[in-house]
């Protein structure tokens, strides 16, 4: 079967959730957003410390990321809340959301003459959207609409030997059998495997771009003047047996399989429409890479973890898979799929991939992930330069 049940959007995308997003454009609107989301059922607050006193590369990146969430396939409509006049402009953001055909509203605390008025206006707008969203029904849609995000989390030596193999088989099943898309990230975790990865590029331009971006990350880390060990690999990676960033990277790349790479895109950019596997250029920092991939429009994400993790996202459901037989005990309420029997038992990796595929197809159709059921999520936009 090649159809799922999803929510059709005017821009041609199909969502697997029907969220109303309330997005803050600057730290000073965060409280109003959080309070409005507390009052209004079925809304997702999106808050962050950025959007003001940033240099242009960060302004573009912050705007792109917030717009990615405001127009995400899983988002029905968006309320934007600004504090005052900001370099990340609330009216512009709401207007760009509206261009996709989604309901949108722009609230400005200064223009509303105070936080209480702004809170009332935000709740009013959000309530109307939530009521309309609740009246929309899922309809059959082709699997080719789907974008499958992949990320690591608290990797250990089991990651590259087991769960990443299941993840790779599942994502290539979506690409090869259903003409869908896949996206992985974490450029700083290509170190040591970048040449083999670049050989998978569909053309010389993409090949060079992959190598250039990996080199850029190495230079950025060297510029700190310190050994990156401790930041990469992390202390929990090292507890799990990973010794160097090269070992972590070579394992991490297993989750991307070995098929062709169509392109490498900037942090938070929309993943292109064509079928195939894409890379998003992000740090290895999980909250930041997952936030970037969500902005790119991935419908769901498989988080392939070694030691177990809470990493999750409120707009893009995150499905956690592990192959470490001890991980389920560490974070039992966050582990959706355990395929450790393929590593230490009698099962093979086709079985492991089937376990993951069967669970993710249910989640696409509406079953909640473990982290959705707990209301767990993080949001962290990667920052490039200094505040000013």
């Amino acid at each position, binding site marked *: 079967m090649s159809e799922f049940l999803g929510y059709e959007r005017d821009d041609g995308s199909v969502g697997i959730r029907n969220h109303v997003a309330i997005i803050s454009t600057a730290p000073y609107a965060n409280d109003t957003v959080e309070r409005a989301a507390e009052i209004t059922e079925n809304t997702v607050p999106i808050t962050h410390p950025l959007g003001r006193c940033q240099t242009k590369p960060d302004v573009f990146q912050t705007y792109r990321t917030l717009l990615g969430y405001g127009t995400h396939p899983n988002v029905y409509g968006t309320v934007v809340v600004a504090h005052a006049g900001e370099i990340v402009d609330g009216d512009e953001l709401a207007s760009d959301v509206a261009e996709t055909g989604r309901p949108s509203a722009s609230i400005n605390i200064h223009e509303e003459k105070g936080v209480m008025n702004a809170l009332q206006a935000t709740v009013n707008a959000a309530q109307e959207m939530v009521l309309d969203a609740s009246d929309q029904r899922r309809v059959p849609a082709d699997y080719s609409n789907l974008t499958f995000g992949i990320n690591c989390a608290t990797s250990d030596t*089991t990651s*590259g030997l087991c769960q990443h193999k299941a993840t790779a088989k599942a994502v290539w099943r979506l690409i090869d059998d259903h003409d869908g898309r896949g996206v992985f990230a974490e450029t700083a975790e290509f170190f040591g495997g970048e040449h*083999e990865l670049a050989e998978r590029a569909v053309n010389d331009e993409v090949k060079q771009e992959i190598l250039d971006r990996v080199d850029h990350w*190495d230079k950025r880390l060297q*510029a700190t003047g310190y050994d990156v060990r401790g930041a990469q690999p992390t202390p929990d990676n090292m507890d799990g047996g990973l010794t*160097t960033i090269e*070992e972590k990277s070579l394992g991490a790349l297993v989750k991307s399989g070995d098929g062709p790479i169509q392109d490498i895109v900037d942090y938070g950019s929309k993943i292109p429409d064509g079928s195939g596997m894409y890379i998003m250029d992000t740090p290895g920092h999980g909250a930041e890479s997952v936030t970037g991939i969500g902005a790119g429009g991935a419908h769901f994400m498989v988080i392939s973890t070694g030691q177990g993790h809470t990493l999750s996202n409120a707009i893009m459901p995150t499905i956690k898979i592990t192959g*470490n037989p001890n991980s389920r005990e560490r974070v039992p309420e966050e582990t959706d799929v355990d395929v450790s029997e393929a590593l230490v038992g009698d099962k093979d990796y086709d079985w492991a991939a089937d376990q993951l595929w069967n669970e993710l197809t249910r989640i696409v159709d509406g079953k909640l992930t473990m982290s959705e059921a707990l209301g767990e999520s993080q949001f962290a936009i990667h920052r490039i330069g200094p505040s000013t």
Partner: protein
Amino acid sequence: MVERHIQVVEPEDNVATALREIEAGETLTIAVGDGTVTVEALADVEFGHKIALEDIPAGETVVKYGKSIGNATEDVDAGAWVHVHNVESNYGRGDLSADSAEADA
């Protein structure tokens, strides 16, 4: 008998990954490519950690997935536990660059 829970990824690797706890003194026969390698564990090795399949002299490449995962910082004997105490990375080494903050400190 070949160890089921000690895994080598590629035949050219000089380390293996323990998928069970290994105790110092155990004699281990490990599958490598089409053949086997037998080593005596020189230390306890935790689940998920690595053991050397052969002597790796200081400065030589530690190989896993058929590729370099760094260099030995001391002579590593076959059967030794291989980890951060005896392997260093070749990436993100700001401490080795000319304007190193650590070098200045």
